[in-house]
């Protein structure tokens, strides 16, 4: 489960973050369409209304488009070829005013510069956690750069 789910963000934003990461990470690349609303609602254990709000956010972010009869179609080519900024958090004991505001503003700033934002969380500094992040950074998405937030040890 994505670490974003531990945050205090509204449920629809957490789901939008998670779906965005899956889209850009290629999880839906074969179907090129997101699962139906009711399936997503079951998967995330939320109401369909929450899912609709999350999907609306993905539409706003230009990641999907709603096509009658086909569902929520992924604008895959654009997502994969566009530059992505990765926001990597580590060792944040709880979601402070600083982190919540920072994540929101960074996403907005990135969007204003035509970047997509990928949110990743480094669980600890073990080699397996670092390898996991490295693997995700090398999964084919075009990464412009990484911004680290949190208590990084030197």
């Amino acid at each position, binding site marked *: 489960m994505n670490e974003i789910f531990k945050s205090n963000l509204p449920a629809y934003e957490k789901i939008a973050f998670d779906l965005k990461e899956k889209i850009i990470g290629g999880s839906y690349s074969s179907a090129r369409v997101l699962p139906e609303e009711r399936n997503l609602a079951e998967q995330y254990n939320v109401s369909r209304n929450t899912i609709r709000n999350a999907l609306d956010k993905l539409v706003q972010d230009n990641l999907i488009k709603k096509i009658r009869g086909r569902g929520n179609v992924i604008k895959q080519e654009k997502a994969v070829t566009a530059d992505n*900024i*990765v926001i990597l958090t580590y*060792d944040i*004991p*709880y979601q*402070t*005013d*600083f982190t919540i*505001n*920072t994540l929101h*503003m*960074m996403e907005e*700033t*990135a969007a204003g*510069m035509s970047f997509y934002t990928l949110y990743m969380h*480094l669980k600890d*500094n073990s*080699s397996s956690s*670092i*390898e996991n*992040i*490295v693997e995700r*950074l090398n999964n084919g998405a075009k*990464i*412009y*750069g*990484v*911004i*680290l*937030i*949190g*208590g*990084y*040890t*030197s």
Partner: protein
Amino acid sequence: MKVLGKKVYVPMIMMGDARSSERNDPPSISEVVGDDYHSYYNPVKYYLEKGFKRIAAISSTQNYIWGLAQYRGYSAAYKECGIELIPELHHFLPDLRDQKDWLEAAGESLRKIITRKMAPQVLVIPGSCFSTAVEIAETNNFKIPDDLLIVTVSGKKQSGAIPQSVTRFSDMIAEAFELLKYESQSNGKVKQRRTVSSHFYP
């Protein structure tokens, strides 16, 4: 961080300081930090010059760069104004991992400062403490005096009458993207530290 830096071949920068009591100079990766020193220095100097003598402050933990910088700013303002600092008027918050414990610790510091015989005239506290200060006071059976001037230290300018010391999140983010761009153009060899200014709004 060094391990990650060796394995990730894309430009990387850090926002905020590393969890350490000292900075590496030069930094091992580029970073954008807030001016924690002046976030406390500016308001304390302002009120000392206005004639207030008992200015209390609660700052972040002394274990890390930012808490130490806040305290240095606080004490430097006293020193520059030639006024003796009252040690009991300053408290460091502990480095707690649990938000509830952290707020309890903040409440305890607040109680010790407020209930002193010679109560402070001004109190400089992190913005995250302020929202709960009144509640903490009520829960712990003490009251925040009406005449106590509270200054909050935060990352976002709020409207209203409360004096604020602000290092804007938005300035830090703009600087972070600018620095990342610079790193990208320089193949990740910049390794620069940029400090975002703190502004005081009395």
